[in-house]
């Protein structure tokens, strides 16, 4: 496959996935600007691999998996720096607790319903959060989620079911017979 046709294919993929990926990142990073940066980096590295002919089984799974790794990297990079600033400070300056996130314009504005849903998901055990988020919001299949999180589709199904049960319990609803 030559570069122009690859560009065409990747552009279509980008148009389809960019919003979902941005949402996924912003759900973890909580800053619009940072989320955009990470999304851009993720797409860039994927395009590099795609254009140079690396074999990629599922573009979508690869995209989310690499975004996940980039988020983890971002946390690792950010945490020690801000901690240092908080504890020591510079020339007695009082620094805000979270310098980037506190800026109003970079915050992601959410409706109260959306906030409550995110709060519910965040209350879940760590393993369940990603699986449930990707299933409910991005409507991915357990197989796709399994590829991203590097576990089997069966495990993901179990996590989704249990996560939903927990959310229903949290909302005070009785378990329903219908399955997601």
């Amino acid at each position: 496959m030559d570069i122009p046709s690859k560009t065409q294919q990747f552009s279509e993929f980008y148009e389809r996935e960019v919003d979902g990926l941005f949402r996924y990142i912003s759900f973890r990073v909580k800053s619009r600007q940072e989320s955009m940066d990470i999304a851009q980096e993720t797409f860039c590295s994927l395009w590099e691999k795609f254009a140079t002919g690396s074999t990629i089984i599922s573009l979508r799974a690869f995209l989310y998996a690499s975004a996940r790794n980039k988020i983890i990297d971002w946390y690792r990079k950010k945490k020690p720096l801000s901690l240092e600033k908080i504890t020591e400070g510079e020339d007695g300056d009082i620094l805000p607790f979270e310098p980037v996130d506190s800026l109003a314009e970079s915050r992601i504005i959410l409706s109260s319903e959306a906030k409550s849903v995110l709060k519910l998901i965040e209350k879940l055990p760590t393993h369940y959060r990603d699986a449930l988020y990707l299933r409910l919001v991005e409507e991915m299949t357990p197989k796709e989620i399994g590829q991203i999180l590097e576990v089997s589709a069966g495990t993901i199904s179990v996590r989704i079911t249990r996560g939903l049960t927990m959310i229903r319990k949290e909302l005070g609803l009785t378990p329903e017979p219908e399955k997601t």
Partner: protein
Amino acid sequence: MNQFKKGIEDIRSIQLSAEEKRLLHKHIFSQPLPSPYRKPILLILSRSWVSYSVATLLIVVLIGSSATYAAEQSVPGDIFYPIKIKVTEPARDLLVQTPIARAQWESQKASRRLEEATTLATRNELTPERSQEIEVLFQEHVNAAAKALGTLSSSNASSTIHDLENEFDMTLAEHAHTLRVASQSSSSTRSNTIEERDHAREIQTDEPENRPTQQKVPQEVPGTQILSTTTASTTGQKENSTDSNRDTSSLEKKVEEARKQLRTEELRTRSERDRQERERDRNVSDHNRSPRQESEGME
């Protein structure tokens, strides 16, 4: 439940603006792509364990090669001399395959021994032990060379053998000559030292003539102390040089023997060759004669 669904819908409504999407798209496709034809060696070296092992290998090779180089320059008594004799030369033995190359290499080794002896003689360091060592090795090499020439003579490259033998003989003669020159120069230094010593003795006029050793001089005459120490050292040197003179003479004898050995070898091979030729001639003539005899018998 409806609220929950609405919440999810709201989350889904989080989107990038058209402008942001366009910018991001532009960024992605404007980045330079790395060439797919990256250099494989650099790619391999980027792994840390590979680079470590390559570095270790380089160090080992460097140390090994420098030790070999040092060994090549060494003479008996040096630290690296055993490496030259026991490692590098046997290693080169393995590389030699044909009898011609074998003969050449053995003769080369013999000349190397003589070169070492010459170096030692010029330095006045040719002790009897070293000379003995060199002689043994030299004899081995000469024997091996003669043997290789012997195996050659059974094949039919007579001119090559002749050339090889001549060459070997000439190098041996040459080395014997240089050795003689070296030992002579050392003996001339010896005669110089004798003169010096006589001169020193003349200076010490107040000393009795029948003084058995020179060592007592410094205690009695403080002024001649420096001179007497030089005489002491020169007498030591004198002993050395007589030794080296004797050793080179025995080595020279060895070389002469080797040349004789080669000459007899050459004679032997020549007579062998002649015999073979005569036999062949006889066979041919027999073969030519036999049908006639048969025909005579028939008649």
